[in-house]
């Protein structure tokens, strides 16, 4: 009962991680400050927890005070840590939107695209999420500044 009470207390995205099958972090974006040590342990725990699950299991894992919503695309896991009150399905849609956006930009996006164009991916994420709130859900709008940047350099 107590658990249910705090279920709807807080909301928002706390971090976005991209981790490959081997458990190597490819992208880490935190919307709250954690020390490097805290980040490392958190990532380790989450990766251990989520990567062990198969596709017949649900995509939501509770960990510490976060709820992790994750989804696997080929070799890459997208893990989003949210507060308890967030709508899980909406976060899944958010992940999908992110992947689609990257796909539109890179064309058949793969892990290497993300590795070598990390700053662009960060740029896209920054367009989509500010301070843990989703502020943009249109692919075209997200990609405009990235394309401008491309043109400029």
């Amino acid at each position, binding site marked *: 009962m107590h658990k249910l009470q705090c279920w709807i207390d807080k909301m928002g995205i706390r971090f976005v991680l991209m981790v490959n099958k081997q458990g190597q972090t490819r992208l880490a974006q935190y919307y709250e400050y954690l020390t490097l040590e805290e980040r490392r342990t958190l990532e380790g725990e989450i990766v251990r927890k989520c990567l062990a699950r198969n596709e017949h299991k649900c995509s939501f894992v509770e960990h510490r005070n976060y709820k992790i919503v994750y989804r696997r695309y080929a*070799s890459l896991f997208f893990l989003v840590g949210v507060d308890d009150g967030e*709508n899980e399905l909406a976060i899944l849609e958010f992940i999908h939107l992110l992947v689609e956006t990257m796909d539109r930009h890179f064309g058949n996006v793969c892990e290497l695209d993300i590795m070598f164009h990390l700053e662009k991916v960060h740029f896209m994420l920054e367009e989509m999420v500010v301070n843990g709130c989703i502020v943009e859900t249109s692919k075209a709008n997200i990609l405009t500044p990235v394309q401008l940047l491309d043109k400029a350099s």
Partner: protein
Amino acid sequence: MDEESPTKVGLNTEKAQEWSPLVSWRSFVRGSAKLVLNLSGIESVREAEAEAEAEAGVAMAGSSIMENLFQRTLEDLIKGMRLQLIGESTFISKATEEIRREIKSTDHHTKSTALQKLAYLSAVHGVDMSWACFHVVEVMSSPRFAHKRIGYHAASQSFHQDTPVLLLITNQLRKDLSSANHFEVSLALECLSRIATPDLARDLTPELFNLLSTARVFVRKKAIAVVLRLFDNYPDAVRVCFKRLVENLESSDPQLVIAVIGVFCELAAKDPRSYLPLAPEFYRILVDSKNNWVLIKVLKVFAKLAPLEPRLGKRIVEPVCDNMRRSGAKSLVFECVRTVLTCLSGYESAVKLAVEKVKELVVDQDPNLRYLGLHALSVAVPEHLWAVLENKEAVIKSLSDEDSNIKIESLRLLMAMVSESHVVDISRVLLNYALKSDPEFCNEILGSILTTCGRNVYEIVDDFDWYVSLLGEMATIPNCQKGEEIETQLVDIGMRVRDARMQLVQVGRDLLIDPALLGNVHLHRILCAAAWVAGEYVEVAANPFELMDALLQPRTNLLPPSIRAVYINAAFKILIFCLDCYLLQNEGSTSLDSGNLAGGQSELFCVKDDTEAAELATREGSNYEQDVGFNPKNTAESSEDHSAENDIDRVASHDQTLAHPTLLAKKKFMHESIVNLLNRIELIFGPLIANQNVDVLERAQNMLSLVQLIKEEIIDNSFQNVDKKDTRVSAIIKLMRDAFTMELGPVSTSAQGRVAVPDGLVLKENLGDLQAICGDVELPSSSSLSTGGPHLATTSDASSNLLKNEESGTLNESTSLIEHRKRHGLYYLPSEKSEIVTDEYPPANDPKSNSNINDEASELVKLTEQSFLPKKRTNQTKPRPVVVKLDDGDVAPISVKRPESRDDSLSGAIKDVLLGSETGPSMSQSNPSDKSSRKQKEKKKPNTNVQSEMKENVVDAEKPDSENPNSSSKNHGHTRDRRHRGKEKIVEGEEHDQRGKKKSGHRHGRRKTHQRAKSPLNVVSQTPVIPDFLL
């Protein structure tokens, strides 16, 4: 939600494999290309800048060009990392060295590239970059956007409250926030959203205020999101910015609305009341918006607001249901369901629709939807248990789901359905599930049974004999790791429920006697409790000798010292009890034999003992003695029967000492058996004097001294020759026995508060110094272990020696145990049994078990059906035993959630802004006073409870005392005066009734406060927060 297949945008691994051989070649080509380009002076952004630098100064230019030429870019670094042969950590440390050199460069380009690499290494490989903070500031202030971007990114990634250079960037941020280039503004906003401190927030509020009404939507939406961070750090910003934020809420631009609703969603989560006046705006968005994300957020806002204002619920229920019916997006439908179940539970048709949707979810193919369906049901539990019951088949089916998260959800739901009437059956079925599930889930099940049954001082348990046996059964489940919880409950029930003690000792004995259990580390805590129970309540044991056997068995040396010490203490109590009984019996028999002679002596020890009873007892005892010789098993049973018959008598009997003779009837304290017992104790405890653990050593030493003392006096004296020495022993034993018969009771958590502080004792407010004093003092248990630490080798040697000794020298010991095993085979849990158990319950994926599962599932379905029936205790074969309950102390204090002071100031500020000058001051005042009055009320409640409770206690304590000095008073938990065991039946019944009444009253009261805390509707509806025309 459109569940598109992931393969559509698949990241294919083949591509990666294709790529990797290319990498070295490409980097080579690019490297040479760069060289060519640079030399030929063909324009490229990077190279152009290098040239500009070159123009600036000849000497400088030379070095920077060289640096520029040979610097590895981020891409080179990543490629190098993939091809490295020297090990990743070495590569990283080398790269970091390189970066440290490059970052000092005066060339902007070199510097920013170095920083970019460092930020990458920090984000992905966890390399420390705090040392580079000054360089970050430098790069941030670069005029070129590409560099600035790198700087800002590094700052938002690595800066935090304690970063020393944070003060230096205020001006830079201010400049960029008011820049004409909206990408620069965007960078600064993004950075501010991550690193804002109270100082930064205060200084930059004016800039943000301007941005909130800028025509450039691109930056305005970001500014809106950042405002949230600003409010958190600097509540006064609300006074400046809030109006503009509300204006954005009224905007029709969808890009702005999505940002602003996100902000209000967060704000409303913290303090919903302040945002009630904005309800019409939210309503408009709910009705107009077509964006699912926005709708989800606005529903979340309403989920917070609706409980505060009943008229809101009426208003939104239609649009919510509309969305639920129409929308194809599962996420939105789910949010509607959640909103209805949490805050619109009064609207029957809406709830019905929501439950309908949930029903679809829980049987869906997609595990995500199944999980969420169960989750939604758990929200419905408090208000709509029927929704759960309607879906119980799906819930029970989920109990054997592949996903442990789903299993746990369904377990939670199942436990929510449990009530007094069928807790027994559900626990039985769950225990079977536990036996065949994986260890993790097994313990999850055990844990939830324990918490459910233990809730509110065993509220739903009627039959404690059953529950105690269940605890014993749990302990023998192979995967059980709930030792600590079971331990606590065993001891707790022992202290609280007098009528359960007999069964408790029985269960304890079954556990203690099984040598196989001693090897299981997880069970040690349970065995500890069992030993304590056996020692403490030995007077209700069927056979104390058997208990002693169990406590003395050789495998007890597998126990950790702390638990061994408990074992020894339990053995000590049992010994005292046996000796006491023996001596009393002796009195009786002598009084029989030598008539009046002993009568005088018996008065010495048992003042109130009447010889008639003693005679009766010994006569019975002799009867049984005959039986013993022929058929021990039979006696055991008959004695149990007898004990059952005697049970009532025993409870009803007035005097503690009187209980002895009746017990004597059951137990045969022969001279021989006592001597045997003493010998065995000597034998077993002899080696313990050399034990490394002081606790064990000391207790064993005490025991041995006592045994020696008794032996000297008893052994030489046969039955007939009772001389004065014996009386001395009797006196000692009597004394000790008296010490042990003092009953221990539960202690209220608030007990300490009732103890008056003695004069002259000054209590410190702050226990901070304690840390300094106790900082290096270890916990008692670990310290006792650590004394054994250095001597670990010797200890093990000693124990192995001990084993050898026991094996060779004391052969009769083990044979006696085998004998014992043979005689009481029934009570031993054979070690093979666990295998049988696993045979009985094959693993879950075994095809054979499927039918079994189905059976159980259907059984559960049947069981939960009973929840529909009114919760009446139908099978009242015996009344629920009295459970000692310290009403005010036992129940966990209802924590009054206090909003943080910052939130208070935040909401105060918001109210001031929202309600303007006319209602502003009154509101901001009324709110705290309202809160405090609520708090006061809540505070008052327990107080009155305590008072009435105390009154009742006094009445309870006085009434029986005046009527019957021997009947036990209810508050024995506090007084510890438990000499009088007897209890009048009628008094007990009365007490029970009273308790029942009080309990329900108490429960009722709690529910009331709960409701009040949850929905202070009346308070709001009186305050004119929302003008009527809006609704």
